């Protein structure tokens, strides 16, 4: 079993750091401290951090902060970042108005 799968493992107490106020997710304004706290609340994966805090769920869909969040989790859990999956890729790749998304055209040839 990979250590990351045991959610009861001791990762030590949450200790505040001087740069905890720095924004990591620019869209949803989630700070480094909030993400670190969430990891100590048991959120050990990028998906869980997203769902718990909305980090990476804003307008840019985590394209800017994805790697930063992953590295923060890896550091806090003391694993290498490659062990962590990035968030699921979802359409639409860019924000699109409902009236446009609903306006489909299927060209027949």
């Amino acid at each position, binding site marked *: *079993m990979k250590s990351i*799968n045991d959610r009861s493992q001791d990762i030590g107490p949450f200790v505040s750091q001087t740069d905890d106020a720095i924004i990591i997710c620019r869209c949803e304004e989630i700070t480094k401290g909030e993400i670190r706290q969430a990891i100590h609340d*048991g959120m050990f*994966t990028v*998906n869980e951090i997203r769902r718990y805090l909305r980090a990476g769920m804003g307008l840019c869909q985590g394209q800017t902060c994805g790697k930063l969040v992953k590295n923060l989790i890896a550091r806090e859990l003391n694993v290498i970042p490659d062990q962590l999956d990035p968030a699921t890729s*979802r359409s*639409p790749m860019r924000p699109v*108005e*409902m009236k446009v*998304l609903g306006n489909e055209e299927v060209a027949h040839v």
Partner: protein
Amino acid sequence: MSKHMSKYNDVIIIGGGIIGNATAYYLAKKGLSVTVLEASKDIGIGGSSRNGGGVRQSGRDTRELPLAMWGIKNLWPGLSEELGVDVEYTQKGNLRLGKTAVHQKILQGLTDKAVSCGLDVRMINGDEIRAINPYLSEEVTCASWCPTDGHANPLTATLGYYKKARELGVRFITEAPCFELRKIKGVIRQVVTPDAIYEADKVLVAAGFDSRKILATVGIDVPMMPLKMECLVTEAEPPMFLQMLGTADADFYGHQSKHGSFVFGGSSGFEHLNKDNGSPISSSIGASCTCRGIIKYFPALADAKIVRAWAGWLDDCADHVPVISPVEEVPGLYIACAFSGHGFGIAPAVGYNVAEMIADGHSTIDLSALRYDRFKPKQ
């Protein structure tokens, strides 16, 4: 590789979704030792985090309605405080919308049944609807209105139960799919995963549609199939309305979240025929179809931008009502699955009552109508 025998538990729960997490929390509160085994890498990755967030009583089958009403009265209002996580519970009513005489008939039927169970729900007309929600188009002519319904955030509610259960000492193991349940000397005893064998006095199977193949290892079947449904979410918008919405036609359902984004689910009519590649992936037509449906009801949302769409599998039961039940023929085994797409709103009540069932042998709400052995062929 020889599998190590894991430490003994009072209860093992298979499935780290909201049902498993909530049950684990209420069991831990009673002082039982619990391990939750989750097959995937993430807690709450299935339907628990893919649904539309409805916390409804109206529109439900009368067999599960008591559970829904009890949960809304006793658990949802204090849940954020209890879990220490904002689950964004908003109790501002549910509008189930209709446009045609056929819709009116469907809604009236549901309403009559719910009223007979003591629920405050009534039919209202177009003007009354737009007094509650002025953004609805003139096409909407009738609705059922249940003022005590509402919505919550499925993501934080699911992970909130996980967080709190973990704090109370529940052990959660991810990437631990259950291959097999094993009876020892006539009673349930072991849960076999690729890495380890876990032992407990009691086992709850709450693994969505995967429950079917897990239960098969001890000769139990729940007649259900996976059904792929799709959802989408908009960018944050200024606050517009607080009600939960649905339609008689089931073309969409959803609400505006505390964050400002609108979360909507919808159907294209091909759900039962959709294919996938082994994970629940969006179809090429689903989101577009849902958008068209929404705009007909809410012309004002035409410019709202969709930032994300996703799909998820329902564990759709033969009669579209969950199985929540002890399995007396396999002593120590319990089932909570087949929620058929409306499990989120009743999840706290299910967790609470299943914990009672497991720990005390009886539950506050009578769940006998939801037994696993209720399925009978046509006579």
